[in-house]
């Protein structure tokens, strides 16, 4: 597809959909926002500060409205939307969220109305080796509707779903290749880097790494908001001013907040009991979620290497360095046990 054709395609999409796409704002920051003019679209290797979970898994989601004892399901009411210019890293994040919320009616309702258009552009700074560069055979393990492989003059187009195909047919573009989704796990098996990090976390523990982070992390939770795959949530009820009516909702939560593990105390006036009260424990819990529990449950890395957490951290904690430390501690211990016979 030539660049000119692509511009026409955006115009075609704009007619019937809300397009969310990376755009620079007035202050010069790259954000995801509604695209109104195709000239504002940014397609490049820089990742937007916010991730697509803002739209797939909104920060606050009404789940039920209640009247007295009766709960009524409230599915999200959204227009048809197009995610345009999703980096292959963020496609991996969305593929993981799709697995996590496979049986969640709220997520699925949004997914049903969303077209994901990915791009082969990846940031230059990226520690996840698998995504260092785009190769066609990676596509069959990612969930998307359309994909733009960037070429010298325009884009090679792939479709990844029937919805994607229909869209191209309607626009009148035929020169695309269809990729059948083959599940999240690749032929060569589990991602090697993922397996190594998990093994290091579980079997080659180096306390010093976490003691250092304990001193530096300020528990602000910004990394959990910036992360494209952090999906912790809590549920809460909100009563309306009118008697006996209100909502049950869920909203993003952060494992760095003190109330995250809170359970009942002895009586209403007694203090509550909390688990993991040290900063180091909390940050370790965060790493366990991404690098142990997610690979365990979904056979997928719980981190796509986008570096958003590093960019946003006010304490200058670099996930790339932490992962290097985790892996080198494992290497050292393996070498030592080999030398010890």
């Amino acid at each position, binding site marked *: 597809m030539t660049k000119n054709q692509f511009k026409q395609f955006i115009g075609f999409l704009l007619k019937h959909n809300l397009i969310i796409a990376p755009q620079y704002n007035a202050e010069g920051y790259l954000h995801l926002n509604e695209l109104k003019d195709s000239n504002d679209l940014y397609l490049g290797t820089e990742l937007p500060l916010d991730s697509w979970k803002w739209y797939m898994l909104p920060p606050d989601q009404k789940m039920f409205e209640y009247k007295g004892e009766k709960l009524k399901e409230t599915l999200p009411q959204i227009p048809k939307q197009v995610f345009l210019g999703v980096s292959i890293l963020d496609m991996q994040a969305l593929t993981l969220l799709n697995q996590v919320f496979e049986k969640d009616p709220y997520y699925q309702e949004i997914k049903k109305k969303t077209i994901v258009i990915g791009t082969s552009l990846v940031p230059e700074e990226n520690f996840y080796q698998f995504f260092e560069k785009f190769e066609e055979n990676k596509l069959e393990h990612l969930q998307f509707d359309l994909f733009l492989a960037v070429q010298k003059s325009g884009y090679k187009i792939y479709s990844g779903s029937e919805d994607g195909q229909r869209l191209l047919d309607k626009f009148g573009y035929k020169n695309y290749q269809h990729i059948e989704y083959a599940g999240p796990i690749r032929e060569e098996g589990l991602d090697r880097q993922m397996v190594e990090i998990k093994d290091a976390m579980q079997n080659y523990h180096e306390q010093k790494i976490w003691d250092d982070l304990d001193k530096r992390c300020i528990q602000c939770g910004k990394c959990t908001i910036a992360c494209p795959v952090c999906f912790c949530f809590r549920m809460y009820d909100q*009563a309306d001013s009118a008697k006996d009516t209100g909502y049950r909702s869920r909203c993003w939560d952060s494992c760095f907040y003190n109330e995250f593990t809170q359970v009942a105390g002895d009586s209403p006036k007694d203090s509550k009991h909390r688990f993991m009260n040290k900063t180091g424990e909390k940050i370790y819990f965060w790493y366990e979620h991404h690098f142990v529990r997610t690979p365990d449950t979904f056979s997928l890395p719980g981190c796509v290497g986008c570096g958003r957490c590093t960019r946003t951290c006010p304490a200058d904690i670099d996930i790339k360095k932490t992962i290097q430390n985790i892996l080198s501690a494992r290497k050292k211990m393996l070498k030592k046990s080999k030398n010890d016979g």
Partner: protein
Amino acid sequence: MINKYKTYNCKILKISQEGSNSKNFSLSLPYKNFNFTAGQYVMISIPGFGEAPISISSDMNKKDHFQLTVREAGTLTSELHKKKKGNIIGIRGPYGRPFPIKLGKDKTILIVAGGCGIEPVRPLILDAVKNPQKYKKVYIFYGAKNEDAMIYAQEYDKWRKACDFNLTLDNPKSKKYRKGVVTKLFDVKKVPNDAIAYVCGPPVMYKFVIDKMIKQGFKPENIFMSLERHMDCGQGVCQHCAIGPYYVCKDGPVFSYEELKNLKTWLKPI
């Protein structure tokens, strides 16, 4: 698609006071074929006040109702305590991995409970009372703060008929009761160390009870404990209850000590 967060209304059939700050609620079944095994829990819901996980505490063999014993501890449970017979509360579940009851068959079993930890093991006790031939022998070690904190006190005589029931109170008001924490009972009563143990109590209790049991030669794979954690979804998604690779809401709440002691995390689960 089934909405797994949907709650089912249950009618409160009966309320009885248990100790000074707990109530036992008998509830109508939320839906047809509702059944559970000892150690499982439900999420209770009161619109406007939210949800919380509560262990099911009734006789597993009763098919017309089930019971939840709830201590008044926070906003939701205080609201529940205001409810009257005939009122409605919401339920979803049951959730979680129960106590492995079959493992104890024809063997000696030991039930250790501290405080309101007696609630999730009560289905085990009631089952043993009803089917005494199921086990070689049943020991119960129960520790409560004082007389006011004793739960199911009117049932102890019935339990004693089928079980070796041992009670101790941290600070008894009357001299009628043994004084001391629940670990003390291990010195008073010698339980064969090949027994299958089911343990439930506050976090602080586990360390001392497990230490004692390991010293006495109990096998880690025969000790089963029910853990308490903050839960929102009950389905292994929201992350609040996670410990190491496990989700307490669905991989637990019952774990063997073998599973927990091998947990390769520096965050101690208990």
